[in-house]
């Protein structure tokens, strides 16, 4: 069994609680994080049936705002949106107050530097600010990119010293509603600032499991109290990063660094839907030439789902063959607790990205049968 080096790692405000709950801890994105509590399979199924509480404080929540601006309301939102739109192909300017959107940071070639969620605050006095959550493993690079690229009149506030918790599952809304009543006003992909015991919390109805649920940013001082209140609800149990990965894979959601990286464009990643029409027309985002060309002519590679018809899981890095010819690579693969069989996603040459195409997965040198399929594997349960 591999030993995990735990020196020099950051801990989250919930670390002591994880230890108390008997978590198995591993190094992840520079933090010591719980990979499991009761067991990956059990936590996964509990999240699909009730509600799982995840500590995702390793991620990179931050605020971008206009420094010393005389602008307010819609004009302030337009000004801050114009800044982040230098780096993302999504329309941020068209977000309504309280609306959140998935987008990607792009390099000059249209390659994906990270994926993130951008929320326009609901409150009037917060217009001109955007709430962003970037990936934990990429946050330092992303924040350096913001400092380098955005106007000196934009200020970046990193708030990764707070706790970010996700409550996910069909019982999440009922469980959180009893603790943070304001969350009930949110639909899927909406967020707003709320107050809990006199403290400012940011609550978004989104997640990384395919279930209804919320992500809540809580000050470090009250993080443990907030988690304990949720865990006192018998419908809520703690869930680790192991089940978070199997849940997101069933939901067909990408993991940055595996399914997305700087070589892949949003078109190849089957995320062209993040590019709203107004941005396609304006063609004013990094790598627009390549991306717009791919939208017309089709990309060379495309991200697809893979049903593994054999029993052996096909993990990240597994070669995909068709008639003994290499046509692509698995980028995420594992076992689906809900379907009770292995599932995977990966990139194949576009001409083979057709659901139903029978392929071979080369697992430890041996071909194992699989089939290209559409994503997700498990239908989402979002509350729109």
């Amino acid at each position, binding site marked *: *069994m591999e030993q995990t080096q735990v020196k020099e790692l950051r801990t989250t405000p919930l670390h002591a609680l994880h230890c108390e709950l008997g978590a198995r801890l591993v190094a992840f994105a520079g933090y010591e994080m719980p*990979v*499991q509590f009761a*067991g*990956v*399979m059990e936590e*996964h199924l509990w999240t699909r049936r009730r509600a799982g509480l995840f500590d995702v404080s390793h991620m990179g929540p931050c605020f971008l705002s206009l420094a010393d601006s005389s602008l307010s309301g819609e004009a302030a939102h337009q000004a801050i949106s114009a800044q982040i739109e230098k780096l993302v192909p999504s329309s941020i300017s068209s977000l309504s107050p309280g609306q959140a959107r998935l987008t990607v940071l792009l390099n000059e070639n249209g390659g994906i530097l990270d994926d993130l969620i951008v929320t326009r605050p609901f409150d009037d006095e917060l217009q001109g600010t955007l709430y962003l959550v970037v990936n934990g493993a990429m946050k330092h690079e992303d924040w350096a990119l913001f400092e380098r690229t955005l106007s000196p009149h934009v200020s970046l506030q990193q708030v990764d010293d707070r706790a970010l918790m996700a409550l996910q599952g069909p019982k999440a809304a009922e469980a959180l509603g009893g603790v943070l009543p304001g969350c009930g006003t949110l639909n899927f992909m909406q967020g707003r600032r709320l107050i809990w015991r006199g403290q400012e919390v940011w609550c978004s109805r989104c997640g990384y499991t395919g279930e209804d649920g919320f992500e809540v940013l809580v000050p470090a001082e009250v993080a443990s109290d907030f988690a304990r209140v949720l865990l006192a609800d018998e419908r809520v149990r703690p869930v680790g990063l*192991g*089940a978070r*990965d*199997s849940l997101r894979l069933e939901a067909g959601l990408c993991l940055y660094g595996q399914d997305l990286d700087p070589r892949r464009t949003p078109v190849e990643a089957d995320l062209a839907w993040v590019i709203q029409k107004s941005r396609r027309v304006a063609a004013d985002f990094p790598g627009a030439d390549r991306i717009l060309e791919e939208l017309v002519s089709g990309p060379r590679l495309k991200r697809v789902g893979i049903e593994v018809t054999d*029993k*052996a*899981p096909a*993990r990240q890095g597994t070669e995909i063959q068709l008639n003994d010819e290499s046509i692509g690579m698995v980028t995420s693969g*594992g*076992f689906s*607790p809900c379907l009770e069989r*292995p599932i995977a996603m990966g990139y194949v040459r576009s001409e083979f990205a057709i659901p139903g195409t029978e392929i071979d997965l080369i697992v*430890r040198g041996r071909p194992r049968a699989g089939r290209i399929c559409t994503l997700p594997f498990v239908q989402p349960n979002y509350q729109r």
Partner: protein
Amino acid sequence: MTTYYTEDHEWILVEGDQATIGISAYAAEQLGDVVFVEVPDVGTAFGQGEDMAVVESVKAASDVYAPVSGEVVEANQELEAAPETVNEDPEGKGWFVKFTLKDPAELTRLMDATAYKAFCDNQ
């Protein structure tokens, strides 16, 4: 009949030059739910410490190493249809292979049950 253990958490039950090999209860508990096992073909020979089988949990695949040198005389084919047997009875019905030992002297490098328990307690 004596059972020995390795630092990689395999067990080997020895009777003369014949042995049964699997992964320990400690290893099975650490892995969590086993979802797939790949055992070697009968007749395959392994040196001590070589990759012999693969056991997969929801999270990851782990190699299982040959505790000593030898040749596979029987593989537990039941595990393909019922990999959860490894969790349910790791040191019994969840065995992986039966082996003919090549060099019983290699057993002296392994731990007995008492030493292995102490080893796990220190993990």
